């Protein structure tokens, strides 16, 4: 049935476009921003737990 053939081709094409978009964006971001900034994240602590600590006077 031609419907399923078309659907299969559409799935390949949409997949290709999505993956190309992701790759293009990743390359563009890597060029535009400093690498040190991109990998600068650190583990954070929890705001609510901090608030509880402050309320209870725990350092």
């Amino acid at each position: 049935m031609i419907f399923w053939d078309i659907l299969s081709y559409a799935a390949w094409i949409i997949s290709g476009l999505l993956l190309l978009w992701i790759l293009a964006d990743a390359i563009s971001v890597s060029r535009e921003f400093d690498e040190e900034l991109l990998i600068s994240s650190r583990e954070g602590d929890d705001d609510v737990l901090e608030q509880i600590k402050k309320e209870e006077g725990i350092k």
Partner: protein
Amino acid sequence: MTTETTTAENPQRISMFKVLNPFHVWALGVGIVLVGEFMGWNFSVAKGGAYGALIACWVIGLLYSCVAMIDSEVTSTVAAAGGQYTQAKHIIGPLMAFNVGLYLVMAYTMLEAADALIVGDLMSAVAAATGYEGLSPQPFVVLTIAFLAWLNYRGVFMTLTVNFVITLFAFLAIIALFVGSDPLNPGNILRHSDLLTELPYGWIGVVASLQFGMWYYLGIEGTCQAAEEVRSAGRSIPLGTIGGILTLLVAASLTWYVATGLMPWQYLGQATTPLYDAASIIGNPSLQVVLFIGTMFAAIASANGCINDAARAWFSMGRDRYMPTWFGAIHPHYRTPFRAIIFLIPIAVSFAFTGLLDQVITFSILSGLLGYTFMSFNMMKFRKMWPLDVIKRGYIHPFHPIPALVLLGLCSAVYFATFLGYGASLLSIMAFYIVASVWFVMRRYQFVKRGDQFTMPWPRPRGY
């Protein structure tokens, strides 16, 4: 969370957005798991019969209740991506952390591949039902992975909001099936009195069924990967995780009850889509459509959550230099671990293209099981090094150390069950992780900056 201001002492930093709430956490955990209710759990029926599967459902439910409680307590203090990897890093040490990180990435990436395979196979089944035989599942496998990777790349809020909607639909589909089976009138549709038999292979069959009982719950521990992006992790992670395991216990029990009341154990034990088959037996076309969509949504939600979790585990390992730091990058606009997401796409597609669904799932289950075994030791050490009065927890699990000991005992039982059915797989997976550990110690550990990786504001552990 946004980019922090730049000063000489405080260089500009970029971090993930804190935009999630307990419903997203629930959607992440239950979303990964719920596909196991639609297919897979029923292989436990083939091993232990209907009653054996019920025992597996509740015994493994106990295992995962311990996992959920332990995870909730530790994660409520470790508000960081990486989940159990980050816990292992802080509490046990680098080699354990490397292994746990690898378990997580492998478990989720394999499960993602299996979910995409299910979507592809469902499309092939629909094509066959409409008269088109031999439709290749591959384009739909790739489309599933590509679309979900794109969604994950674009931001965690939309990713997990979509997961919430489709997971809720899938859960309601199970409820609709239960209601549609007329449970208040036993014997009308449900025929437990005719179909339930004694244990066909005795108690050894029950033990063997434990491995497949994992399908009811595998992945609920993934909730803690959201810790760095959730508002108030100390409260949201326990709420979402405990809510998730309760949802799954209800869904698993309903699933068993309906399916075993409609199908003899000999058929149920080898069915591909038991809940859809149950809807077909009831004979309600609307229910069939709902269950088909529910199955599809459950598989998509699972793949979506797996991409989210695998990427965060890989990203965290990159951030700590357990893997190249290049993977520890965050997208400056979408605030997602974009390189980790991209890196895992071809790996997931490769696993999916093997078509070996049972082997892929077995690898995923065993990787998960290794992670749960670690959690029991982790919990004992966590309470010893940082007792309750030293670190403020968002949640404290009851009856310590009983849950940790029960978890260890049940993990041992599941290892034995897996050895009975998949001994070669178990040994080859162990060998894989041993080789990976040797590589880490010999080649990679030299790049890890031990001091830099401990950024949690915890006091010095007791005894150090």
